[in-house]
């Protein structure tokens, strides 16, 4: 499993919480499980068998992989690489990001990610011109 390769990073996280200061998701939600610190605890619990893959999926997708946490981390831990490895494993297990799947479906059906009627573009053009 790809995540096992990153076990040492998960273990090296000391839970100091400095990563929270620059995390765009955590700053919106103030939810520990949205921060890098919380994610490392969650993934540790997963590797230990205390959590199942389906329980962690949603939290793993709530990350922009912007690397702000890595830049703030005193140990420079590559948290985004760990999150991406977790996501790869989730996809393998059929637990892909539901929102991404919806975006793809929207693109195929309506040629835009929001699932809007393509004719709506014309209304925007009209509004802009007005």
């Amino acid at each position, binding site marked *: 499993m790809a995540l096992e390769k990153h076990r040492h990073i998960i273990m090296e996280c000391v839970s100091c919480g400095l990563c929270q200061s620059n995390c765009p998701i955590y700053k919106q939600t103030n*939810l520990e499980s949205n921060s890098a610190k919380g994610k490392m605890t969650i993934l540790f*619990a997963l590797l230990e068998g205390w*959590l199942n893959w389906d329980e962690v999926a949603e939290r793993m997708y709530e990350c922009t992989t912007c690397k702000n946490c890595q830049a703030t981390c005193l140990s420079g831990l590559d948290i985004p690489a760990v999150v991406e490895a977790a996501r790869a494993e989730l996809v393998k297990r059929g637990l892909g990001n539901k929102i991404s799947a919806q975006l793809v479906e929207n693109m195929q059906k309506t040629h835009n990610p929001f699932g809007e009627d393509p004719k709506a573009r014309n209304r925007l053009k009209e509004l802009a011109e007005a």
Partner: protein
Amino acid sequence: MSGTIKQLIQVVGETNVVSAKVDRIAYSRDLTPYFAVPDAIVFPMNTEQVVKVLTLLNEKGMPVTPRGGGASFQGSSLAVRGGILLDLSRMNKIIEISNEDMIAIVQPGVRYETFEHELQKKGLTFPHDVGSHDAATIGGILASDSNGHHAYRHGRVGAWIQGMEVVLVDGTILRLGTRAPRYNMGYNLAALFAGSEGTLGIITEATLKLAPRMPVEATVGAFFKNLDGLINASLAISMSGIDAGTLEATDGYTVKTISDVMNLGFPTCEGNFVGDVQGFDEENLQRKLMVMERILEEHGGEDITIARDEETINKLWAPRLEIDTAIVKVHPGYREFGFAAADPCVPLSKQAEAIREIGRIIRSHDIIAAVFCHTGIGIIHPAVLIDPRNKEHWVAMKKAEQEILEYVVGIGGVVTAEHGFGYVKNQYVRQAVGSIKLELDKKIKKLLDPKGILNPGKMGLDTEERDSDVGFIYKEYVTDQEMTE
């Protein structure tokens, strides 16, 4: 529990109660080896909600553990008895900053650096820059009466509390102090709640004293072949009357490790000194720097550097701040843990001896130690870096912890001066404060929290054990009970 959760949702709303297993696990640890899963996390948004939540939980006799940033080094905000984790991080408004009264009124969830950034715009500072930076909330800083990096100059945080709003366990709102700078009206209850680690009430608002931001500053570094020279230089700086911001020492082992791993080219030494000093103008600063430089030179300081730019300042601070980074490069998987001997304090005259001896004790057990000292105030921080998958390392850490604390008390020091007792030091509380004070503390606790629901299992108040009521992150962890077998 589901009935209680429904009632809590009625008070704070659905989005402010979290009980999914994945989230409860994310809130189950801090910098200690422990793993304590709360039954639910509740985020109050205002004082009225804290009143209602506490009233409800007190009626039920359910444990409630207050939490700020969760950056405790001693397990202070772990829900070791389960129940509700009361996360104050969403009460994060800066209500007012007043230049005229030199105060700020803030909610407990305001993060330190976020606050400081706002103060900076107004030429002010709350000079209590804790090592946990933006991971720390004002509520957590006050509840642990912590020291900041500049505690040498500005003291501990208690002195900066001008007023406080505290919700007592029965829902009563207690208001202490005003906008007026001083009061002397009976027992100083603000001092009691500061450092109570959430065991006596919940801080819901604070009126904080502020200081003017000094416009110029510099960092000074030097290396010493002999730690005695370093400590004597630090004392001489104090005695010169220079109001330095901070005076710090790092032991030679740590300096060498950092220098080798980061290729910094530091000279061989028994310790390095870093201090900073501020001035109200350039001339004022230069006079202070001139005296500091002379003192460091007279006491054997080498490679004396005065830094004004970020790169050089970071280099000088590297031994103090980058040790974890350096160690994991050499030993992947190693990490530091909060342990009971992380923040003792010794008489100023014993600092050099204590830095040496504490380092020797830890290394005698074949584990890695980095030893730091706030030389102006006698606080020593030994950092122990271990492989958490190695059982022998846990045994070594526990043996070292006990030997360090015995040594420190033996030379007239104290067990803890910065992080507080929390959960990790439960077994050392009686030894540290004596039975008379501990029993008095228990009476105060009983008076303010008769059912013992507020942050139970901490500060030796209802148990003098650790390891007995929590889980452990690593199965290799060795409990106190196993140590005695």
